[in-house]
């Protein structure tokens, strides 16, 4: 639509503008006869009953200044039955307890055994120097200078701290996390070089969504992930089948009188969608997911978010491979998730055995391993009212253990993807 001067002019002036443009061509040629016309007295004073203004001609139908958006009932998304929506911004009020009840999963603290054995297997030469380089690059050496948000210290909230300029949080997170990921990738590829073909690292994938029924209510999940590692072969389960069958006797703590969908958004406008987000031609099985924590949430709430994204992706995969299944899966699906904030890293390992989330007591359960609170370094901010000599931020206490755990998770089951080992095993059999 071509925007003309007429739209940005007031209504009265617009009409005056149009009336001034009238020429003899616009006037009607055939005038009515005098007998057909009623004679009206023209006086400057209005009649006693009429105090209102004269009605103006009608407005344009498409005037964007008077646009009224449609209500919820008039939109295309409107459905009669309401549904509960999950988003990346859904903050679970009970944390991991609520997420474990939703996903019907038994909780373990720490790393599973199959991953813990791989901690010292992968090495990076000059580990401490490279990690320090990545940290300093994201915190100090970068040349961006933007206005940072106002800061208030909880120790002395009335003190007004000066405005600071520097690198914003998003950029710091992205630089650090993707640098560490690339280092881990090279370390794993030095021992198993076939990973370059069997794996793929995707940044900001989108389109992950699922939906299923939970106790007479529809749930729809739209997941937000920052990076993902996908592979051609699926991850094997963390735990043998004997423990899976014995898990039916274990109990999950109840959430009475709350339901786990208390933090979901209840609407009548929604779209249901089931998709993985990765390509279905190659590298369609998820290996690890990476979430970047841009918020000021607690570690418990971040881990709950990681669990639900892992569950959502696994359920989306199940619906494609086994369309009609309702209860237990023939082979369990396992997903790894890494949670990264500026200084801390959290790991979650999820194994899906059933889809029957309604019954929280009977049946086989899923497994979850939580490893929280791995601090890479500490970031101390200045406190000017204390008269310290340190005026800027100080980085202290580097710890390389979380980096080693990252190497172990990224290098999990790299042997199976390496086709050279499979070839050697086949030769030995012959």
């Amino acid at each position: 639509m071509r925007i003309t001067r007429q739209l940005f002019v007031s209504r009265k002036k617009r009409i005056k503008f149009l009336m001034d443009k009238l020429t003899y061509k616009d006037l009607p040629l055939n005038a009515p006869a005098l007998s057909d016309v009623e004679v009206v007295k023209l006086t400057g004073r209005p009649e006693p009953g009429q105090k209102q203004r004269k009605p103006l001609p009608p407005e344009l139908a498409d005037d964007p200044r008077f646009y009224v958006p449609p209500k919820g009932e008039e939109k295309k998304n409107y459905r009669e039955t309401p549904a509960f929506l999950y988003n990346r911004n859904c903050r679970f009020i009970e944390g991991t307890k609520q997420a474990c009840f939703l996903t019907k999963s038994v909780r373990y603290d720490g790393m599973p055994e199959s991953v813990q054995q791989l901690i010292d297997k992968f090495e990076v030469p000059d580990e401490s120097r490279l990690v320090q380089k990545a940290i300093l690059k994201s915190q100090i050496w970068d040349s961006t200078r933007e206005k940072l948000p106002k800061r208030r210290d909880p120790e002395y909230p009335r003190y007004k701290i000066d405005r600071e300029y520097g690198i914003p949080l998003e950029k710091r997170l992205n630089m650090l996390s993707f640098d560490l990921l690339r280092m881990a990738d090279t370390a794993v590829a030095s021992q198993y070089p076939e990973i370059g073909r069997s794996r793929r690292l995707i940044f900001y994938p989108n389109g992950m969504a699922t939906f299923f029924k939970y106790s007479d209510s529809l749930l729809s999940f739209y997941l937000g992930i920052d990076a993902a590692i996908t592979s051609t072969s699926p991850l094997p389960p963390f735990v043998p089948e004997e423990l899976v069958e014995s898990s039916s006797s274990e109990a999950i703590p109840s959430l009475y009188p709350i339901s786990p969908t208390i933090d979901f958004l209840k609407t009548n406008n929604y779209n249901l969608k089931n998709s993985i987000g990765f390509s279905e031609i190659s590298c369609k099985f998820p290996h690890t997911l990476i979430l970047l924590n841009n918020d000021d949430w607690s570690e418990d709430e971040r881990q709950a978010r990681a669990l639900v994204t892992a569950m959502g992706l696994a359920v989306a995969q199940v619906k494609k491979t086994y369309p009609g299944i309702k209860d237990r899966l023939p082979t369990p699906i396992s997903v790894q998730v890494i949670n990264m904030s500026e200084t801390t890293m959290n790991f979650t390992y999820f194994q899906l055995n059933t889809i029957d989330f309604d019954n929280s007591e009977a049946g086989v359960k899923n497994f979850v391993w939580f490893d929280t609170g791995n601090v890479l370094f500490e970031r101390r901010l200045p406190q000017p009212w204390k008269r310290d000599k340190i005026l800027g931020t100080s980085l202290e206490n580097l710890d390389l253990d979380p980096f080693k755990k990252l190497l172990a998770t990224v290098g999990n089951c790299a042997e199976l993807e390496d086709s050279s080992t499979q070839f050697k095993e086949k030769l030995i059999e012959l």
Partner: protein
Amino acid sequence: MALSIFKQTFSLLRSSSLTNVFCSSERSYRLAAYRSRRKFKTERRPFHYVPKGHPVLPPDGKYTTEPLTYIRSGGRDLNGKVVNAKIGGGPKVNWYMRDDHYPEAEETQGLEEKVLRIHPDPIRTAHLALVGTGNHKRYIIAHQNMKEGDIIKTNRDIPTISVRAMEGNSHPLGALPMGTIVHNIEKIPGEGGRVCRAGGASAQVLRKVGDKVILRLPSKHEIALSFNCMATVGQVSNSGHDDIPWKGVGEKMSAGYRPRTGWHHRKTGYHGKKIKPKRTFIVKPTPPKYETYKLSGD
């Protein structure tokens, strides 16, 4: 005193066109009258006549637990002019929708709710408590000894024998025994809690007379309410907020109170230049009222 003020406002409003407003208290009637009047000439008003501010409610009109913005009035009227100069300034705060209505409950079983979070309210003196059941969350007034993880019940039954009152539970007034301490009381059943909502407030149930229950309010007035009015047991939290004195003018100004003006203050004999000389007091010996006799001791 209260009746005379009510008559004054009623006589003043007879000329203006006021819509039918049903209010349970004189204060809410005055607020509605204040909002409906639009005069070009302003008058100075006392402190509690002008509201300190108003929140920006959502357009849906539904209940939300999200924090909303709070716009301070600055002592200004609807016409934009200063009506009270002792109000102004203050920090930017969030306003939380507090649910003072009592939910509907099933018979004999009641409704159970779990306490999730407790934190202070930036605008009100009482603390806020997040409470949830099923798929619904809401904010309520926190009582004195509330902790995270407690379970709260609401019951609308009135049995013949009075109920054992536990702190935090809410019952109708007809079911409570005599001597219980109570807050967030309804004046009209179904309207929502109106009485005793400030920090540290509480009322006491005295006796039952016929169809009504008599309470003693914190102002030591006695009030008779119907059996069906709901109330919660216990004392409101943050009882010692009045005992802390202000540190100085700076703390008051940063909280939103401005110093008093010299306009329209009652002048006493203390004000102004002292022209009259001081009165001299003369002490005279006063005669006794009765005749005195000296008696010899024997």
